[in-house]
Each structure stands twice: as structure tokens, then as C-alpha cells.
């Protein structure tokens, strides 16, 4: 798995899925991203990324319960696979290591 790497947006999507926990379906993940980042999250790009992460084996998905406000359609819930956790942890560590001592950049902004 070490050969796999994560793009920045992929990392953000994985984190959003992680933060949402049991409630990580498409619309919720998008909310999470929109609320916590400065980005405009294009719907299509996010879904394609979720799809790609699942193909890479970093996410798993299951169909949930249909609800009336969704026109009776089921939710598709995502969660991190073991590979996904390993890779995300590694990416987070790498980033934190690089950030060490540079935190003032964030505070200045």
C-alpha cells in the first residue's frame, strides 16, 4: 500500500468521511467539507473522488435506509477501510511533520 499516495482533495474527503463517523453519506460529507474549508466543493468532483477512493480500496460503502425527503431513495454511507486509515494516518503525519515550526503562517492569516 505504500505505493499509493493521496491527493490533497482525496485527503480532505477522507477526513470529512472520518469526521462524520456513522453519518458519512454524500450530502453530509459535502456539508462537512463546505463548513470546514474555504473551498467551493463541486458536487461532481466530490462524488467522483468518493468513487475513486472506493475503487482504490480506501473507502467502503453500504446502502442505508430510504427516507422520504430523499424521494424514497437510500443513502450510500461511506467509511474508511483499514488501508484508508493507514494511508490517511501516514499522510497526516507527513503533513504535521512538515508544519512543525511553521504554525505562525496559519495564525498570521
Amino acid at each position, binding site marked *: 500500500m505504500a505505493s499509493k499516495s493521496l491527493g490533497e482533495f482525496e485527503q480532505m474527503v477522507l477526513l470529512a468521511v472520518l469526521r462524520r463517523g456513522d453519518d458519512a*453519506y*454524500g*450530502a453530509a460529507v*459535502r456539508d462537512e467539507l463546505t463548513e470546514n474549508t474555504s473551498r467551493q466543493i*463541486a*458536487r*461532481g*468532483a466530490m*462524488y*467522483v473522488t468518493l*468513487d*475513486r477512493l472506493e475503487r482504490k480500496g480506501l473507502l467502503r*460503502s453500504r*446502502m442505508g435506509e*430510504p*427516507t*422520504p*425527503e*430523499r*424521494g*424514497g*431513495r*437510500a*443513502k*450510500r454511507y461511506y467509511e474508511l477501510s483499514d488501508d484508508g486509515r493507514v494511508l490517511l494516518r501516514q499522510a497526516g503525519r507527513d503533513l504535521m511533520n512538515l508544519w512543525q515550526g511553521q504554525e505562525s503562517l496559519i495564525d498570521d492569516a
Partner: protein
Amino acid sequence: MNRLLEFVLALATGSRAQAEGLLGDIAEENSIPGTTNALSVGAVLAALTVAATFAVARITRPVHRDLPRPGSRDAMMTVLTQELRSALRLPWRAPGFATAAVLTLALGIGANTAIFSLVNAVVLRPLPFPDSEQLVRVWPGEAMTKGWVMAFENTESFSALAGVSWASATLSGTGRPIELRGGEVSEQFFAVTGVAPAHGRHFAAEDHAVGAEPTVLLSHELWMRAFGGDTSVVGQLVELADDDVGQRRVVGVMPAGYQPLYAQWEFWTPVVIDPQWDYPGSQMSATAWNMVGRLRDEATIDSATAEVAVIGAQIQESAPDRMAESALARAVTVPLLADMVDDERQPLILMLGAVALLLLIACTNVANLLLARGEARRRELSIRSALGASRRRLAAQLLSESLVLALLGGALGVAAAYGAIHYFRRDLINLMPRGGEVALDVNTLLFALAVSVLASVVFGMLPAIRAQRPTADARHGDSSEQRRANRVLVAVEVALAIVFLAGAGLMLRTLSAFGDVDPGFDTNGVVAVGVNAVGDNYDDPYALHGFFVEVEEEVAAIPGIPAPAFAMSLPFGDGSWGWNYTIDSDSYAEGAPMPNAGFRVVSTSYFDTLGIPLLAGRLLDADDVHGAEEVVVVNDAFARPHFERAEDAVGRVITLNTDDSFRIVGVVQGIRHLGFRSDPVPEMYRSFNQHPTRMRHVVARTAMDAESLGEAIQAVVWDIDPDVPVRDAITMDEIMRTSVHEARLFAQLLSAFAALGAVLAGIGVYGVVAYTVSRSRRALAIRMALGASASSVIRRSLREALAPVAVGAVAGLAGAAAAGELLASLLFGVTPRDPVTPAAVPLLLIALASAAAWLPSRRAARVDPAEVLRQE
């Protein structure tokens, strides 16, 4: 819509679960409060955007070529999916080429889809009635009368058979009086169509009895418009007046959209037939009757026709003066649908043919594009071939690319067709029966898909076959076989271009002829306003006469209307009743047909107002009053068969078969009353003063605009009687335009398609010729290196290029002649064998092809031969 979106998303993402989750998310984020299932426009757009993103992501995803064991089923599928995937990336690899090809195909496929949707809606789809294939129109050979309908009851072939006739009436008491069109029907009419009223009941046998209370069934549309959809109107008396009846009781309301004969009727009334009539033909009805029937399960069209003929013979026996024996041979039973759309079938089929040719041209052009591109890709294909790709595999690659191009073109074409249908929908409703039902339904979409796939084979085949011979070295130019293929392409393009240009020429000249036709009078500034005096007040002819005289006086007093006139019927809109007559009591041989002429009642100023020239004798004047000698004015079409000169007709006496006699006092020029296509028919004009019948139109020549004239006349009429309906004013030019509306639209569409086809074919001819010549640059260079002069080289390449053009031109002229014959029924003012168009068209194309050949060969001749040879 939801299902369609889900399908599109599943297609784009490759997973139904994925699609469901996605659409659910989008619905949740865009939900409209209070609704649970409807998607907003925003949601639909969002879903489409996501689908597009997925599609792009999938297409651009790298293809992994892990080949399974060759020859296995898996291998075939893998090859196919791999080639398709790689082909899907074509538009990104060669955007210019792909755009040109896709747009060309979209044009062809879109035109085919749009016209097919029309054919599908009008001709192919069953009528909206239960077991509609059992519905037939019955025609005993002669115009039906009321009484004859009785003779057709209790037949063996029909489970129900009904007579139906056009009726008009005035509805008052619901705001300003309105004129309505409807149908007068016999007892089994609703049993024939098999549709129950939405409210109330059908007519029962009692409603058709002599002395029964007059009743009416309303259309859903009239019920909503005039009564606000109030169910309590059922059972009420309404002020629905016609010539015989002042009020009718509403017995029911038909369901929305119920229009069995597509006549946009607003009410139905029960015909009253007196069973005491001695023989079926004894009741001369003023209106022509149509019969519609429903066949029994075991009956066929043939058995029904045979039975109709037998009944017809009985009628003929009992009423020989009403029905000629020869009429029996014309007795037919035809499927109702076929009968209704009879007039539309031929133009529609012609248009399908035109768009099919258009697509063929589009395919030829794309094939040419592919061939040219094939040169550029020869290297790529050679490398694949060298690396072990089989010929079949290379052909699969090229055909996959063709399929992708065709499907993209098809998708764009369907979108364009959808737009066109919506744009023209309003016109189509008024234009032809069932025109309002045109839609992109499943049939049409399947058709578009089939056409796209077929097109991909047509234009992809030649380049694919050619790619099978990658060994033909580019350095040696084209093989003789390839040159032959090119020549065929040129000839086909030229032939198609000629057919299209000739067709466009004929249709354009038809269009201009519609504008040039002489109606027989001066339409400039003539405005007509419908005034329909009906009801008890006007049953008395003198009351009627008095009303119109008063209206005439008041209208004449309006400033700006010099000479108002009245007419029973208008040119280009209304027919007239035909009457048999004799002149000076000439006797006619037994069984020989008596001459027949139309009968029109007009006010004395009618001829002056319309500007109809007097040819002999005098016009109707103020002295032709009740009590004076009964006189008529006839037109030249009436006089011509009987008299050498128009003057000879003046003074003679006409006797109608009703034994009424009139003296001819004048002959006027004929008007094309029945429409553009028919020459003036024999007609007689009687004075309103001698024959106070129901007048329906005020006609005036004025400088005022139609609308204010209409309002002024309306005010005058309502001042005299507020219960008389007055229609909006209409100019004679407008009436003329409307009368050729359908013919004009077909002509416009066909000339548009033909012009498009001609342009495409022109581009194609240029492209193929220029391509072929540029392919032989090497040969030109060698000739020049060997000492040939530039001009002789150019001459030679022109000669070679023009040979297939000439072949195509000959084939095209034959095709154009055939197309002209096919178009004959749609032409006007120009004959199918019109010499101008075919002569001009080939010259145009030869000039085009010469330019296409000359430019590249001149370029080749100017360049240093060594340079060309090195390059190649």
C-alpha cells in the same frame, strides 16, 4: 423524469446503487418544502452535472490492457470494451475532427428524429380510443344525407355505426355571445368511439326522437371555459342556439381531449331522424354526413365494404335521383386513422425521404473526413499492426470510433429535435390532425438510436475496410482500388447534391408562386368580420333581411368604410352548395350528369367591394328586390362550357333541380373560392335582397387596421342586437395565407432540408475532390520532374477529377427527375419537369468541383517537384 435521471446516472457511474445514493443526496439538498418526490430544476441540473463529471472521469481513466487468452469469449468482450473505451476518448484526442463529424451527424440524425416523431404521432400511433383498430370511416360512394344513416343501422359487419355532421351554434348567457363548432351525431356515435362522458350521460334513444327536448353534450374544454368546470351545469338549460333550436339541456360533459375526428369540436347534439320518412333518401339534408363505425371482431374491411355496397344499392334503388348507380362502385370502408391522416401521409413520407437523403450526405461527408484522417493515422495503425494487432482488431477500433461519433451526433440531434418539436408544437396543432401529439416518445428515441447505429456502419465501413490494408504504402499514393473508392464517393456526393438542389429549386419556386397567385380579385385592404345572426328572432327571412339592412346602413356610416358588403361565404375559406341546373330548359340525356354550379348569396355592393371585374351584362343592383324578376350573376367558369362568348349567357334562364328559375343578368370574372390549387369553379351569385338567407360576413375595403374595424363593426352590431356574436376581423390576405398554410409549411420544411442537403453535399463534393487531388501530388510531381508543364499537369488532374463528377451528374439528373415526380403533388406554379432547375444545377456543381480540383493541383504544380517528393 426521476427514473430517467436515475438511469442516466447509473449509466454514467456504472452502478445503480451509486446512482440511487447520488440522486437521493441531490433530492435531499434541493428538496422543495412540502413535496416528497418532485425534483426541482436545480436538482435536475445538479444530477446532470454530476453525471457528466462521472462520464468524463470514466472516459479519461487509463485503459489497462490486460489481454485474456486470445480467441476466448472473454477476449472478445475485452477487445470490444477496450476499443470502445479508447474510442470514447476520441473527442478529446482530435477535437476539431470530432466536432465537425458530430455536428454533421447531429444535423442528419436530428432532422430524421424530428420528422420521424411527426410521422410517429400522426400516422403510426393508434388513435386514443379502446380497440381503435376497429374504427372505420364508411363512405357509400355519394355524399350522405341524414335519412340514409337509418339504412345503415343493424348491419352485420359493424358493432356500431353512426352518422356525424358538422354543426355550428351560438352560446349566449355566459358573457359575450360566442360562436361554437360542434358535431351533430346519430345514436350510436359514442358507442363507436367507446368513450364515456366524464360527467352526466350519453344521448339516449329518446334524445333522437321527433319532438324530444333538445339536448347537448359539452366538450371538457368548453365546459371549463364557459362554465368554469361547474358540474351543476349538467341537467341545466343553456342558451345554445342554432338555426332550429334556441336552448338545449346539457346531459353530460365529455372527457378532456375527446376529439374523435380531430375537428376541435366543442359540443355534440343528437340528430333527430323521423322514422316516418318513406325512403331513406327523402330527407334532403343541408349538411353532408360522414359515417364512422366500429367493426365487429370477426368482420374485415373487405366484408364491411361489401355490406356497405349492398346497402348503397338499396338506397340507390329507392332514391335513383339522389344517388347515381355509378356511385356504388366508389363505396368504401377505410380504417379511420388512415382516412384521417390521408392528406398528411404523402408529404410526411416525402419529408422522411428527404431527411434520409440528408443523412446519407452527412454520412458521406463524415466518411470522407474519416478517410482523410486515416492518412494521418496510418502511422499509428501501422505500429499497432506491427505490434500484433489483427486486422479485425483494427477494424473494431475504427468502427468503435464511428459508433462513438454517431452516438454523440445522435444525442445532439435528439436534443435539437426536441427543441424543434417544442418550437413548432403550436403550429402543428392547427396544421394537421394529431399534430398536437408530437413528442419524443420511446419509439422516436429507439428510432434515433437505430439511425445512429446504422449511420455509424454506413460512414465507418469504407474507412474500416481500407484500414484493413495498412500495407499500402503511403509513398506510392493510392492504389487503384482506393482511387475507385474516392471516385465513387465523388459521384455519390454529386448525385445527391443535384437531387437536393433540384428539389430545393422546385420547392422555392412553389413558395414564390404562392405569393404570386391571382385570386381573381384585389385582396388589398379587404377585411372580413363574421356576424352570425341566429336564434328565434331571425327565423323569419324578413326579420333577417331587416337586421342586415340596418347593419349595412350603420356600418356604411362609420367613417373610413366606403362600401361595406355582405356575403354568405368567403373566398378561400368556405365552400358553397352545389346545385344541378338546366339552361333554357335544355333536356339532358337520361343518366347523363346535369351541370352543377356553386351558389352564393351576396349583397349588391359585393362585386365592387372585392373588385371583381364584370365581363358582360350588369351586376346585381338595388332594383333586384323581392317581387321583381329573380336574377343571378354567373362567373366566367359557369358561362364558358355553354356559351362561346360571355355576352351570350346574358338573358338566358337557369332552372335549378328545385324548379326555381333565374335569369342571368351578368357575367363576372371567377374567383378561386376553393383555394389556390383549384381554378375558379362554375358559380352563381344571387342577391341578398331576393334571397334573404343567413349572411355570415361583413366585407369592407378600408384603410383602417383590421382590429379597429372589427371593434367598430362589433359596436354597431351589438347596438342593434347584443345577442348576435361577432367574430374578430380578419384580413383577406390573412385568409389567403391560412388557406395555404399547410402546403406552405411543407414547402418551407422541404426547401430548408433540401438547401441544407445541398450545402452539405456541396461541402462534400469540394472536400472529396480536393482530397483526391491532393493525394495525387506525388504523381503530379513526378510528371513535372519528367518535364510536363504546369498547365498540362493541372489540366490532367482536372480531367481526372471531373470524370466522376460527370457520372454523378447524370445519375443525379435521373434522381432529380424521379424526385420531381414524387414532389408533384406538393408543387404549385411549377411543373416537376421544369427545365431551368436541372440545367442550372449540374453546371453549378461542375464549377464547384473544378475549383476543388484546381486549387490543390495548382498548389502542387507551383511547388518544386523535388520538395514534394522529399516530403512524401
